[in-house]
């Protein structure tokens, strides 16, 4: 409460209550750093270009597995899509498979030097996103994506390809835009 101080003759205002912090800051946990960072054993924090190259080769060891497994997945998904063209109740299953396949290829294509596959898979993923089924034309668009991915994989087209491949990606993207609706 504000009061008059008889000694000094001043009006004294009470101290404002201290504002408390609304954030708790917890110091960094340094256990990992203490037990793993040293100057004797292990890998340099800043790897040399040669060491990075060796590490990249470790990643590329799985490249053949990628080609084999994704090739198999592409063929299986293509079968599901073709069956779904004839048989309406099978369409949700085909869409789920196409969605999973698109995500896997998008995620891993670029890692194994197939960025073109990542591009096409991304187009396919956007096209199948939030769908539970598809009409015939939409299934054909999915099939075209699968066929393109298979051709790239079978031909081992690494990198972004030539103008022909880029034109194919552009054409597929246009197709997805044209047949995007209805989305159900």
């Amino acid at each position, binding site marked *: 409460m504000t009061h008059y101080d008889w000694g000094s003759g001043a009006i004294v205002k009470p101290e404002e209550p201290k*504002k*408390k*912090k*609304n*954030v*708790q*800051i*917890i*110091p*960094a*946990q*340094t*256990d*990992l*750093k203490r*037990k*793993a*960072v*040293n*100057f*004797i*054993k*292990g*890998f*340099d*924090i*800043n*790897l040399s270009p040669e060491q*990075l190259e*060796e*590490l*990249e080769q*470790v*990643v590329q*060891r*799985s490249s053949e*597995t*990628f080609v084999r*497994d*994704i090739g198999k997945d592409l063929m299986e998904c293509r079968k599901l899509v073709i069956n779904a063209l004839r048989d309406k109740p099978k369409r949700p299953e085909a869409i789920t498979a196409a969605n999973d396949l698109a*995500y*896997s290829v*998008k*995620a*891993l*294509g*670029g*890692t*194994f030097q197939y*960025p073109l596959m*990542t591009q096409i898979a991304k187009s396919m993923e956007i096209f199948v996103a939030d769908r539970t089924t598809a009409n015939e034309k939409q299934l054909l668009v999915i099939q075209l994506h699968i066929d393109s991915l298979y051709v790239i994989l079978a031909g081992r087209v690494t990198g972004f390809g030539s103008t022909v491949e880029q034109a194919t990606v552009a054409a597929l993207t246009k197709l997805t835009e044209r047949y995007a609706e209805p989305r159900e």
Partner: protein
Amino acid sequence: MNAKIDFSKISFLIVDGDKISAQVVYDTLAYLGASHIQRVKSPNNAFDVLRTEKIDIVICEWRLRGMDGLEFLDVMRNSTNSPNRFIPVIMLTAHSEMRYVTTARDLGITEFLAKPFNAKALYSRLVSVIARPRRFINTGTYFGPDRRRRQVQFDGPDRRSLDE
């Protein structure tokens, strides 16, 4: 003399339903010298491992069957049942658009690695988690590593020091 990281001292848990992706991460860690690497396909299995074993770093895919990687992260950071609220989590995902990155960041991700990734990117996330640990921030709406990585000049109110 250069500082080094001895990966044999660190235990890892890979949570990824994709066989190839999990294998790539496993191979990379094994090459770096890590000897304790667990692989599981789902968050439920991950919780089982985290409750029974000492795991130092979790490397988790966003897209998982059942509970997704984001829900897994949410439970890890915010649930009273969490096996370890402070564990570093590296999120691997092909969802690389900005909205996904910010969502993961705001749920307390330690590092985010967009797929397709290369060895250099994975290594840099590991180094960051091990050699440059960040303090944790606990507010009413956020629990996780400090999201302010860069110290920049800011003229507005300091929300961390005063009540609003």
